[in-house]
């Protein structure tokens, strides 16, 4: 704009605008009538829904209240949280390894990683969970030894080693690793190549370069989708109810199978899921701010310092 206005021989648009504003003209802002109307309609609908939820006796809020802090429900919520934490941790660790493998210059290594991701992303989680639950049908005895039929030492029967809880953790973790691998790969790819070069020029290499320079910067890109994954994992754990594991949903199911208060107990379960996702989102924001340091907005601490200095 500035360059344009400086070019000789043309009437500058800037000057025209300035002339117009110099006179005391009243400015009439654009009215958004349709937008306002839509907002009012939506508000009415939302109020109607809220009113119905509050007054419809079929919701049985009394029953909801009496089961909200039921021991079985609390234990179920605890197990759901535990499943989420363990599977997410395992998924992130394995996912990081898979992501680094996927980026390897060795075609065998990267293809293996690609194959893993293809398989675990391409089959339904529910199928994988039931599969691990029934692994004993394929391998009754788990043993360690030389592959291709060589000698081996039997360790335990598959049913002993892989309990329903073990099957749930295996299924959730291995599935999560495939998704996390893609997220982390994207994060690593987003780090400027100059960063690796600068680190190499300073004598860094291999794991140290990854840990100190690349991964911390990848975090900024990795965290938001990972937060999504944690939340969808928390809810995804409800799938393990098919393995008769007493997570939050299964606990609610057991109770309503006995007292037929299906809706009320599903509301109880939903309220706990909502509470847990809210808390997790809160932590996600905190962690994102921690790893955003030096990138987006200057951190508060530094901003404060410059303010007092000036």
């Amino acid at each position, binding site marked *: 704009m500035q360059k344009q206005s400086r070019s000789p021989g043309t009437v500058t648009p800037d000057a025209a605008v300035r002339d117009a504003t110099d006179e005391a003209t009243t400015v009439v802002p654009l009215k958004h009538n349709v937008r306002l109307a839509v907002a009012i309609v939506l508000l009415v609908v939302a109020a109607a829904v809220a009113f119905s939820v509050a007054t419809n006796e079929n919701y049985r809020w009394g029953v909801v209240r009496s089961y909200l802090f039921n021991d079985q429900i609390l234990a179920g919520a605890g197990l759901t949280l535990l499943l989420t934490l363990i599977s997410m941790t395992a998924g992130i660790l394995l996912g990081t390894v898979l992501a680094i493998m996927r980026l390897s210059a060795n075609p065998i290594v990267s293809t293996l990683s690609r194959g893993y991701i293809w398989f675990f992303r391409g089959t339904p989680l529910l199928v994988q969970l039931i599969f691990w639950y029934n692994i004993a049908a394929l391998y009754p005895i788990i043993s360690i030894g030389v592959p291709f039929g060589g000698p081996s030492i039997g360790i335990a029967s598959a049913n002993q080693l892989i309990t329903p809880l073990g099957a749930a953790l295996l299924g959730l973790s291995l599935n999560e690793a495939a998704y996390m691998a893609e997220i982390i790969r994207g994060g690593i790819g987003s780090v*400027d190549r*100059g*960063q690796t*070069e*600068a*680190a*190499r*020029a*300073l*004598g*860094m*290499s*291999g794991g*140290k370069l990854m840990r*100190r*320079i690349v991964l*911390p*910067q990848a975090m900024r890109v990795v965290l938001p989708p990972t937060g999504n994954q944690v939340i969808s994992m928390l809810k995804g754990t409800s799938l393990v109810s098919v393995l008769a594991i007493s997570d939050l949903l299964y606990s609610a199911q057991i109770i309503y199978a006995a007292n037929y208060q299906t809706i009320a107990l599903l509301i109880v379960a939903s309220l706990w899921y909502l509470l847990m996702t809210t808390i997790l989102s809160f932590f996600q924001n905190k962690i994102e701010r921690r*790893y955003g*340091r*030096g*990138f987006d907005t*200057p*951190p508060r601490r*530094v901003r404060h*310092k410059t303010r007092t200095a000036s």
Partner: protein
Amino acid sequence: MSTPMVAAQNVRKNLGSTEILKGINLEVAKGSVTCLIGPSGSGKTTFLRCINHLEKVDAGRLYVDGQLVGYTERNGKLYEKKERETAKSRLSVGMVFQRFNLFPHMTVLANVVEAPIQVQRRPRKEITAEAQTLLDRVGLGHRGDAYPQELSGGQQQRIAIARALAMKPNLMLFDEPTSALDPELVGEVLDVMRDLAEAGMTMVVVTHELGFAKQVCDQVVFMDDGVVVESGPPSQLLDCPQHERTQAFLSKVL
């Protein structure tokens, strides 16, 4: 005469099917400043990056302080060094990039002490004091707590120089250190480099700043199309170039 800091013998480099370096022969004496000039695409930056093995040399030999870069010679064969060994040999060579490449997730001070602590395993206390001195030397002693993004390009480049110096290198490589800077910020970076040259550091500088080359360099090397066309002291090469291509380049730039 002592061993030269850098000695290139017929250094060649291909990228895909294009030949970037077509046999570079060059010597850089210890304590001297060499400027590489030439049109873009002439291979100056590639050659600079070969010196600390960020680019692999395909043929010919490149010695830094008498040591073959990137290879070990045994029974008349050259064996490529392991990444870890190459990393070790880079410790004595500092590099400054066109785009600064400071670590954005670390404060200025953390940028400077990172490699000495992580790679050289020097005690944090000792190197922090030393880093502070280095930051003072480039005129940024008061910005240690800032993050790189809060600084101007010129300041970032001075930090990058301090970061390279913290490794106590014998040789400093500069890859167009002022090309990404606003014109008014070029001077502050060149001043730091001039001080460094006066302190006796061996430097190889890829630059378009012919004024700097004239004042500071002991040797100016003109490269074009992957070969060294002409080299000599600045008074000779810049003021009365012998070669036609050098003359053509200088007449366009000056």
